[in-house]
């Protein structure tokens, strides 16, 4: 070892991109869990939620399990059908180059989420914490917050930290509203959405795949709500090729796919809570921008034998993008788990992070747009069921006797 200067080992910088995407996902999940536990109003509010997701069947506490399950499946089918229709509509609009319409629409829905959903959740929080504020100041603050958010996401070049924070906030707000759906519907909906995502991205006729190919062929960006992690700048010795990167098909090929559920034409901003509940939940779908992860690459020598290591995503440099829909559905899963018990929260959190890691590894291996929902959601649901059925009793038995290992 050199006495004067020990060169930094690889351990200092390896895996940084993965951490940069795991951190905001964790923050989003953590915030939703906190909101769910603090607000804890699932009985009183959920009865007034009438959304696309409960249009087929409204769950009541007195139904039997089998009825609830059937109703949940109906609800999810309706939801997935609506999402598919709207995504095809989006593909059509993109094909006819109405991108500015889409961008303004995105800005409008961000405004609705931040303004109305955020405002309502803010009111709940004020009620719970008995914070003294009058409604004019509150409206002023809310309005400013919302406008800055819309600008940060769409119109101007803001510092990336502000944009990222607003993305996470939109994710948290939307996910919180989703957790107000009835229980069986939520779980079946999660599974249905991950299956839909799998189909839409990988099947040749899937809307998201069409969208990706359109975007690639025109070399354009799809207007979408996508979280972009800050790219990693390699420190240290710049003369040596530090990182092997692989070459993607196109220079800037965007794997971004959007899932827009632009359903409502009648969304006028209405103030009473019920219609806010319904109209804004209809909007919610379009914020569920999808799972697209893409690694933007610089061209460098490509050595096939490196692929084994690159295969676990360690060798890349570039920004990883994750669609906001992923944030939302992961947080919905964890939020629902929080409504049962905290042990399920920890288990589901670990499962989702593991799924995300696996998806990133697959992304590095296959080097094309991949759905990020299926692996994580399936693992999350599996771990939730296993924890609830097996783990809890075991742990309680051991712990209450002060028996640990």
């Amino acid at each position: 070892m050199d006495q004067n200067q020990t060169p930094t080992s690889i351990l200092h910088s390896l895996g940084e991109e993965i951490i940069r995407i795991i951190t905001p996902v964790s923050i989003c999940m953590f915030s939703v869990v906190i909101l769910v536990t603090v607000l804890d109003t699932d009985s009183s509010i959920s009865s007034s939620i009438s959304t696309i997701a409960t249009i087929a069947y409204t769950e009541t506490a007195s139904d039997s399990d089998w009825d609830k399950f059937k109703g949940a499946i109906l609800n999810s089918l309706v939801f997935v059908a609506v999402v598919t229709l709207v995504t095809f509509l989006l593909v059509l609009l993109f094909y006819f180059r109405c991108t500015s319409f889409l961008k303004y629409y995105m800005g409008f829905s961000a405004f609705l989420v931040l303004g109305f959903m955020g405002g309502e959740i803010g009111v709940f929080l004020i009620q719970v914490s008995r914070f003294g504020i009058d409604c004019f100041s509150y409206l002023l603050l809310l309005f400013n917050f919302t406008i800055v958010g819309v600008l940060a996401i769409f119109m101007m070049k803001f510092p990336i930290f502000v944009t990222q924070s607003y993305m996470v906030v939109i994710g948290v707000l939307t996910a919180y509203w989703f957790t107000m759906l009835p229980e069986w519907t939520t779980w079946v909906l999660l599974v249905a959405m991950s299956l839909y995502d799998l189909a839409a991205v990988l099947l040749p006729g899937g809307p998201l795949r069409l969208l990706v190919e359109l975007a690639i062929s025109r070399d354009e960006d799809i207007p979408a709500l996508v979280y972009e992690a800050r790219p990693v700048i390699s420190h240290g010795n710049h003369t040596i090729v530090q990182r092997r990167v692989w070459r993607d098909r196109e220079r800037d090929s965007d794997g971004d796919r959007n899932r827009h559920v632009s359903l409502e034409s009648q969304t006028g901003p209405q103030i009473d809570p019920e219609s806010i509940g319904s109209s804004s939940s209809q909007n919610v779908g379009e914020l569920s921008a999808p799972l697209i992860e893409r690694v933007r690459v610089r061209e460098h020598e490509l050595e096939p034998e490196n692929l084994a290591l690159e295969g676990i995503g360690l060798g890349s440099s570039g920004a990883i993008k994750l669609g906001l829909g992923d944030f939302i559905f992961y947080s919905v899963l964890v939020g629902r788990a929080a409504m049962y018990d905290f042990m399920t929260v920890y288990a589901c959190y670990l499962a989702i992070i593991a799924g995300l890691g696996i998806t990133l590894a697959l992304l590095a291996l296959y080097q094309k747009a991949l759905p990020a929902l299926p692996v994580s959601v399936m693992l999350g649901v599996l771990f939730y069921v296993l924890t609830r059925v097996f783990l809890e009793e075991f742990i309680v038995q051991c712990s209450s006797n002060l028996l640990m290992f």
Partner: protein
Amino acid sequence: MTLGAGIGYVLLALGPSLALFVTLISTKPFLILILLSSTLVWLISLIVLSGFWKVFLPIKTTALWPYAILILTSVVFQEGLRLILWRGYKKMEDMLDAFADRVAKPRLYLTDKMQIALAGGLGHGVAHAVFFCLGLLTPSFGPATFYVDKCSYAPFFLISAIISLAFVTIHTFSMVIAFNGYAQGNKTDQLIVPAVHLIAGMLTLVNLASSGCVVGIPLLYVVALSTLAYCGKMVWRRLTETQIRLTPQNQ
């Protein structure tokens, strides 16, 4: 249990791990990934064990032997898993060394390898604290607290946090000892780790007796502190002999 008391219990169980995390692990993203993976592996082992024991629970008798068998099987399973973790770590070490060669950076130092082992052990410890202690603690905020009959000196949550702290220490440092033992082929190290784990597990059986925790918990801390001391001695020995062995022209 008030919010202040609850936060106190959480920090009691997880405070040292948080300190280790912030100083050592948060600066190196790879170690964070190792920590998350080892937490996941521990969780999976717990789920498998609970699946296996589902048919036998709840244990109705107050006799000692069902609990002893439970702990024995759990410890044996987890130690077996540690061997599998070691194999996985070896493969990963080879890949990392190859990667380091390609990007013209130095191979993994000894301290790097020990840090990876530490992160792995910390993952195990954090998983233990989270599932055994925090899982029961976080839903219990609100008025009143809970006491266990057999150990009514302090609230249940406080006792479980104290026990978890001991186990976090044991898990964290025994991973370092174990990986070092496997790397050097040192039989003593390799055998000491399962032994310590088993002894610690069995010591908690003492808690089943009435007022047993007065005896059990201090003994548990003796075990934890001796693991810590042994690990420290071993690391010191390893580092000094590596320093002595290295001459300037060697790596």
